[in-house]
């Protein structure tokens, strides 16, 4: 219990501490950021020891009042899904610190401070069990990312940062409105109480009401995921962001949307989720294929990887809206997988940028000759990303597709095309950047991985293999959490049947 609060308190403390480090000593900022993020990671690992994986409910909860009127509580806790997302965040933050070591030369202290603030926001999003608290963390995570892109980005960073910010805000405003609406109905922002009210039937939503609320939440999350056609902020943000920003953005921030879908959309609005599933699945499948096709023709490496994210996250949404145990498990696992493998891809592209100062594929070619280790690592990462069995993505993709096939075999038929296309764009990228004869520019600029880069890369590679082979480390607790959500979906259906009986009051306001 204390540990989870520490996971929130430590990044905040580290953020404040970093502000005190003198600006003239960038080295101090780097080392203290690294030390802090490693400590946070260690603390979050300790969560594992206290966590009971067989229990699908929330654990390690803290629930104390924050603001009395309106009733907002500091209510945090983790279940089998959010636990891993917290760990993903804490794992990637030291990695992000390491890969920015040389890349970020200006305003070093501020950069790392923002990075730790970002970590705070992200962890907060995954552990918040009060809708308002969730919203606060959601916005907290937005601001540092805005600055990371806007200050340390490339040429068109302002455009990208503003686009990112506005897109996300557009969605989250709707979400806030829906939250407040829910508060007016239920008199609480607390997730657990809301669920209890919905399950017990104390609070009932009319079909239209539920549908609108669902959409408000859904749009916020769909933009964050991002689901086609809300995705165009992503390539710009990625291309302009500094490497660490891209890594965190792809690996963790996009998961906020997926997480929201599973945590809020499904259990709070089961009927509307089912009702809207057909077109959402359609969008997801379109996203899978569309993202892959567009990725295939990108001349810019980061854009390519960004569009591949669109494709990969289509799988996640597909899995979520298949409403099957396999699909949901696969979706959550795919969230983690994508965090590792796409994060690693962005990291490696970042390494290449640091050497050659270009993101254009045409500036490379033959990199394997001067940098064989970089080439090998890139190969493994690409293979993980394209879903080679025995590496991580395969398990997630397989479960998602199998779940989709259980729901509707046609979905799997179309979605699986993405697996073919992912091989096309990644191998083609690899061929054009790493293989062939190296030009003189490439030879003179490119050099192999240095120890610091190894330190950031090796854990990712180990995880890719581990998650691909020993998926059972992760899946049981994820499955337990998802089983609860599916139970809730079933109850939703049962209640649906009840609702067809003589109508009762649709709104039960309750003062608290």
């Amino acid at each position, binding site marked *: 219990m204390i540990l989870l609060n520490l996971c929130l308190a430590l990044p905040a403390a580290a953020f404040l501490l970093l502000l005190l480090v003198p600006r003239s000593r960038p080295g101090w900022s780097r080392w203290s950021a690294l030390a802090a993020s490693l400590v946070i990671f260690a603390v979050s690992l300790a969560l594992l020891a206290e966590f009971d994986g067989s229990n699908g409910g929330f654990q390690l909860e803290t629930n104390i009042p924050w603001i009395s009127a309106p009733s907002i509580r500091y209510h945090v806790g983790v279940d089998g899904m959010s636990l891993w997302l917290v760990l993903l965040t804490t794992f990637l933050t030291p990695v992000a610190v390491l890969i920015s070591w040389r890349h970020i030369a200006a305003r070093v202290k501020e950069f790392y401070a923002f990075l730790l603030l970002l970590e705070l926001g992200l962890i907060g999003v995954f552990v918040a069990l009060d809708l308002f608290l969730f919203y606060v963390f959601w916005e907290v995570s937005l601001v540092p990312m805005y600055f990371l892109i806007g200050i340390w980005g490339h040429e068109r960073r302002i455009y990208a940062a503003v*686009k990112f910010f506005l897109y996300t805000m557009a969605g989250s405003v709707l979400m806030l409105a829906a939250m407040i609406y829910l508060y007016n109905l239920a008199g609480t922002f607390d997730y657990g109480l809301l669920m209890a009210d919905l399950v017990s039937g104390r609070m009932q939503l009319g079909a239209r009401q539920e549908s609108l609320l669902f959409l408000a939440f859904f749009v916020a999350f769909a933009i964050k995921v991002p689901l086609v056609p809300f995705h165009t902020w992503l390539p710009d943000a990625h291309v302009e962001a500094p490497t660490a920003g891209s890594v965190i953005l792809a690996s963790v921030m996009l998961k906020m949307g997926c997480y929201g879908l599973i945590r809020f959309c499904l259990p709070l609005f089961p009927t509307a989720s089912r009702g809207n599933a057909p077109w959402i699945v359609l969008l997801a499948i379109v996203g899978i294929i569309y993202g892959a096709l567009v990725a295939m*023709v990108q001349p810019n490496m980061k854009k390519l990887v960004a569009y591949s994210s669109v494709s990969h996250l289509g799988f996640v949404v597909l899995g979520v809206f298949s409403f099957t145990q396999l699909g949901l498990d696969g979706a959550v696992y795919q969230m983690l997988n994508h965090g590792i493998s796409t994060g690693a891809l962005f990291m490696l592209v970042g390494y290449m940028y640091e050497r050659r100062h270009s993101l254009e594929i045409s500036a490379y070619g*033959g990199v394997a000759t001067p940098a064989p280790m970089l080439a090998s690592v890139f190969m493994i990462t690409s293979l993980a990303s394209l879903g080679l069995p025995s590496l991580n993505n395969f398990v997630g993709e*397989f479960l998602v597709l199998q779940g989709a*096939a259980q729901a509707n075999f046609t979905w799997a038929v179309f979605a699986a095309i993405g697996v*073919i296309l992912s091989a096309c764009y990644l191998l083609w990228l690899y*061929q054009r950047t790493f293989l062939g004869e190296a030009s003189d520019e490439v030879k003179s600029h490119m050099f192999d991985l240095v120890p610091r880069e190894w330190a950031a890369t090796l854990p990712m590679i180990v995880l890719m293999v581990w998650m691909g082979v020993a998926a059972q480390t992760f899946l049981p607790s994820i*499955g337990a959490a998802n089983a609860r959500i599916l139970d809730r979906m079933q109850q939703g259906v049962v209640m649906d049947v009840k609702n067809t009986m003589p109508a009762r009051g649709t709104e039960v306001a309750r003062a608290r």
Partner: protein
Amino acid sequence: MLHLWLIPAFPLAGFLANGLVGRRASKAAVNLIAIGSVVLSLLWVLKTLAALGPLEHTHIERYFTWFQSGDLRVGFDLAVDRLTAVMLLVVTSVGLLIHIYAIGYMSHEGGYYRFFAYFNLFMFFMLLLVMAANFLLMFVGWEGVGLCSYLLIGFYFLRHSATTAGNKAFIVNRIGDYGFTLAVFLIFLGFGSLDFETVFAAAAGRPVETSAGALTLIGLLLLAGAAGKSAQIPLYVWLPDAMEGPTPVSALIHAATMVTAGVYMIARCAPLYTRAPLALDVVALVGLATAVLAAIIGLAQTDIKKVFAYSTVSQLGYMFLGLGSGAYSAGIFHLVTHAFFKALLFLGAGSVIHALSGEQDLRRMGGLRKHTPVTFVTILCAAVAIAGVPPFSGFHSKDAILLAAHHHAPWMYWAGVATAGLTAFYVFRAVFLAFFGTYRGPHHPHESPAVMTLPLAALALLSLAGGYFNVPRWLEPMFPPAEGAHDALLVYISVAAAAAGISLAWLMYVARPGLADRLAGRLGWLYRLVYNKFFVDEIYDRALVRPCVEGSSAVLWRGVDAGLIDGAVNQVGMKARDAGSVLRLIQSGSIRSYAAWVLWGSVLALAALVLSRGAR
């Protein structure tokens, strides 16, 4: 526990050792690790099989759960039955020979350790493929060997054609795997499990499907996977290009083992196919069509490896024909003998290429009989084996397939016989062009070292005598024995076809050397059509690849993404900015006017207060 896991684990360890430290190790150390791991693997296979004896029942060992979700549990489970035993022996023994051969062949190449690391990795995945006890673990091996194929085809990564061929192989295989995965989904939907044991036991309880049903669909989708891996129509196009890899790769992966994975897989799924005769018919048809088409293309190729590549495609078609005719054991039998003689053909070709410092064009060879006698003799052994000359290995297995085909549908037998004739012709064409006549190239041919010729000799022995491993009888408990009497006449006809093919080749390339060119000139467009492989690659390129790439670029990316969606978003942004520039006039930057606005706002608030009081 017999520790089956050790069999694939040895090569994996070899891969890790060579891959991690091989760069700094000496060649001898690399050799020791690479060859040693395969030797250990072979020894463990022998020990295991000796321990298991007659293998009346499948021996399964379950190690750990790979992943589990809902009611789907996929375990890391290995199994050995009679079919697997055959495959294990072939893979490890032929694999070992080719490993040894590669020491000599690759001795002058850069990236020596890398080559052997990939080779060991391949052995690992291939062994995993044949020992897997469920569909998904098999798929691990399945994709893994594809990966190694990709890596080894693109081994000379400085050559654009090699890397492109690698990509093509991987992507075409992926298209096949698409079918495989869909089949796996259907199997889980239908049977609730992915374990071979459970699925096949459940399938055995089902009626034979007379019209297209779930099993037929599964069968067809699995066939798609097999067609990708085993280079069948329409997915065969990657295999000829795969010859860009070093020759030992072509021998091991693209002739003896990996490409036969499709055959193995269909034989493994025999319980499903037996109940889906429609799917089985399609298997036979695809196999036959591939056999004929590839044999025809093989007639006109001038690159020695390409000839053998098309020959491989054609022979794989034969195996599919055997499977499709219901004679699974005949298909596997041919798989075994083919592994021997085709590996030998490729290794022999490699020896020739090695002798000529990289020359692969048949038109610049000739008369090598005198310069490379060992190679010549061994290749000749392989040629008579593949041509189906009795009593050598190819004769036995091909015979079994043709008999089954005749029982299945007589016209298939006749097409098969014609293909046998073509096979004999193009193989001997290659042999005659390379080894007879006078030398037409600029190099100084020399015989290969013993490390290369010894494996050749061993394989030659196997090619000649391999037909006496009675694989069909060994497999009888698993597969119902092929029906139909052993009709001597049918055998004579196929032997005659082979003899005709050989004689024709002798006539055209040795007795009357000008005849072939004149014939080609006479048949102009037909020759060009065949020479250019029926333009299949070009058609795929125009019809599939380019529309996909260019459509994505022009329509999806620039049109929909940048134009439509981003355009709309930016329009919204522009409109907001326009609105903002009107409102901006208020933001004059003058504090005093701000103060005035604040005042105005408080006046409004006060007025509201006053009015609301008035209203009350």
